């Protein structure tokens, strides 16, 4: 099913496609090796408006629809995953709380500089003892005059070093906790009492960094509760809603990477055939390509369909979970199969495939593991909330 996109968006999409091919791809290995995105490239990303994709035009963003946004993610992830990570964390989970639940004043104050990329954001939810069990967070926030005092340790926070703003989830009522006792805060980097640890050394996603963030009597003004005073205690659902939207984006990322890997495999097979391997010699590989293409096609339909539904205002919680599982597991399988097709050459980083293999692996873990997604889906299917089982 072809979903209609505007000519204006089509031009933008082509611009991004060209940007990826002409400016990101040539430095791919350099970024992988240096574990850093060069600042001039960050400036280009800002210029192109990528930091402001989902942010409404009135706040300086591009105001893209969900469908448009996922299509751009499909383009950006055709190379190292770190670019999407830096951008998508910032305009996604790092700021979605403000976009969805913020007061008008908060939106006016923060969204424009997030949209321009002047400020990068991070989402501080995860803790050493609160991974999948997000409700188990320990970071506390206690009132002291006109301030909240935050204490606690967050872990694996993407963008922590380069972020100016942390959407921080803390416990404001130890008894109620996730049921009315958790609050979402806008914490600015230069507020006293924040320290960021060294970058974690990861399997992949080089160029994107995660860190421990320690809040030690961190003083946050009362106005920085996302949504204002009436939203105190309602931050857990903000956090869950933020992650919910991120799942479609994750699906798009897995799809973009998978599509690129498929294309690299097709090129490789052509190369092998040019060197004299026949169709008969390569039948198994030909079938492997077919299997990859089938899955990529299925994932694309799932994704675009759900994106369009969301743009119509419909709830896509279950579909988003399904796409996240399906597309991210697909990406791992396709990357592994690609390694088999490239054989020993696939082991070498310069041939790209093994980089994709390592990059896509995290997709099955962060922003809700595949296991959590299956919990969400099965509970939805069985309507457990309603039946109370």
């Amino acid at each position, binding site marked *: 099913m072809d979903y209609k996109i505007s000519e204006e968006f089509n031009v933008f999409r082509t611009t991004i496609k060209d940007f990826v091919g002409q400016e990101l791809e040539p430095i791919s290995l350099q970024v*992988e*090796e240096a574990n850093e995105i060069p600042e001039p490239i960050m400036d280009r990303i800002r210029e192109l408006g990528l930091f402001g994709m989902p942010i409404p035009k009135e706040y300086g963003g591009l105001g893209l629809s969900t469908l448009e946004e996922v299509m751009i993610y499909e383009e950006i992830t055709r190379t190292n995953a770190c670019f999407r990570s830096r951008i998508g964390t910032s305009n996604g989970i790092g700021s979605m709380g403000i976009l969805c639940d913020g007061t008008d004043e908060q939106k006016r104050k923060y969204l424009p500089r997030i949209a321009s990329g002047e400020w990068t954001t991070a989402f501080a939810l*995860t803790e050493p*003892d*609160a*991974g*999948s*069990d997000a409700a*188990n967070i320990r970071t506390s926030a206690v009132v002291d005059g006109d301030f909240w005092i935050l204490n606690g340790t967050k*872990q*694996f926070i993407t963008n922590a070093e380069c972020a100016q703003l942390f959407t921080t989830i803390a416990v404001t009522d130890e008894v109620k906790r996730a049921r009315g006792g958790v609050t979402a805060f806008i914490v600015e980097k230069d507020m006293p009492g924040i320290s960021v640890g060294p970058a*974690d*050394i*990861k*399997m*992949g996603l080089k160029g994107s960094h995660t860190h421990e963030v320690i809040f030690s009597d961190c003083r946050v003004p009362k106005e920085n509760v996302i949504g204002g005073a009436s939203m105190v205690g309602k931050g857990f659902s903000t956090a869950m809603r933020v992650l919910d939207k991120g799942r479609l984006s994750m699906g798009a990322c897995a799809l973009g990477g998978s599509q690129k890997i498929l294309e690299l495999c097709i090129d490789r097979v052509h*190369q*092998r055939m040019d*060197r004299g391997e026949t169709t008969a010699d390569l039948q*198994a*590989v030909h079938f492997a390509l077919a299997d990859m293409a089938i899955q990529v096609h299925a994932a694309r339909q799932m994704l675009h369909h759900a994106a369009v539904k969301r743009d119509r205002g419909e709830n896509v919680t279950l579909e988003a979970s399904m796409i996240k599982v399906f597309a991210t597991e697909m990406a*791992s399988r396709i990357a*592994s199969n690609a*390694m*088999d097709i490239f*054989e*020993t050459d*696939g*082991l*070498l*980083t*310069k041939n790209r495939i*093994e980089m994709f*293999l*390592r990059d896509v*692996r*995290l997709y*099955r*873990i*962060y922003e809700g*593991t*595949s*296991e959590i997604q*299956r919990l969400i889906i099965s509970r939805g299917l069985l309507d457990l909330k309603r039946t109370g089982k």
Partner: protein
Amino acid sequence: MIFQLDKMQKQIRKAVVDFVRGEFKKDLVDDLVRAKVYPEKIWKKSSELGFPGIAFPEESHGEGLGAFEKTIIAEELCRGDSSVGACLAQAGYGAEILLQYGSGSQKGAWLPKIAAAQILCTVAVAEPGGVTVATTQTAAVRDGDHWKIDGHKTFVRNAGSLAGMYIVLCRTDANAIAPEQGLSLILVEADRAGIHVSDSGARLGQRQIPAGEVRFDSVCVPMDNLIGKENQGIRQLGDFLNHARLSTAAQSLGIAQGAFDRAFAYVQQREQFRKKIIDFQVTRHKLADLATEIEAARLLTYQAAWAVDNDRADARLCAMAKMHAARTAVAVCDEAIQLLGGYGYMQEYEVERFFRDAKTADIIDGSRNAQKDVIIDALIGKK
């Protein structure tokens, strides 16, 4: 059929477990891994265990044991650490060629050095540009009483400063009717003039094993450096590959078990949702599946090792063992990452490195499709 190690084999396994506990200290291994440095000290210490030469005859300074003992040692070393284990298990890569086809003086010159962990052994077969073994272009031409070798080999494991020599697949008969009939294996000492080694570059896994592109520019070696008979290279290589596959299977087995052990320990202590992760049914069942797969891969690998030791060296079994153990290791390591959650993606928690080493084992010494061809050809009875 006896599904049990004998007393000596149990002692060997225990000796390796003790060696791993004593030598594979986490801080040391982490430093070596981070710096991508060959574990030289540990390798040299392993010769005290008799490891690199475990299956060499005693007159070659070996322990006079067999492929089975070599298998259980490689398994335990890789279980201890997938990367350091792989280095040690591949230190003697190619030695079986000398054992089976080498002359007395070739064996005398090299096997003791390999057994003493003084040099790494290498085999140089693959060439750039998708050239197949049959169409090998590296040429060895008679020049007086020498061979003159010219060519370019890719991804030669152990190539570089620690290598003692290169066992090189060369074209010795340019006029052979079938191209694969004109190939020989020739031993080239690493200090011969004209050898140029350059690092193959950053890669997925087993990063501490040196791997390089090796160019031979008119390298001259004595005629005596020919291994066995002329134009028998393909056959000799075929016999060697049984050992290589078996070794990779053993390493994969260890990698799988090592990843399983780590994940198993983790899920018994990590709590989320007020339970230990192992108390979730899905986790329990995942672990049951993984343990079953490892057990099956172990039995297949041990059967292949037994066959090699009992003069039933079987390409079919060795290929099955390699393919199955390697894909089992990949699956187990992948799931181990998942069981550790975010920690699974962090280098510090090791399982992601076990995965990368497992996937490397899956690809080297013939990927899955290559193994399948060997298996079905054996079933059909093709020679």
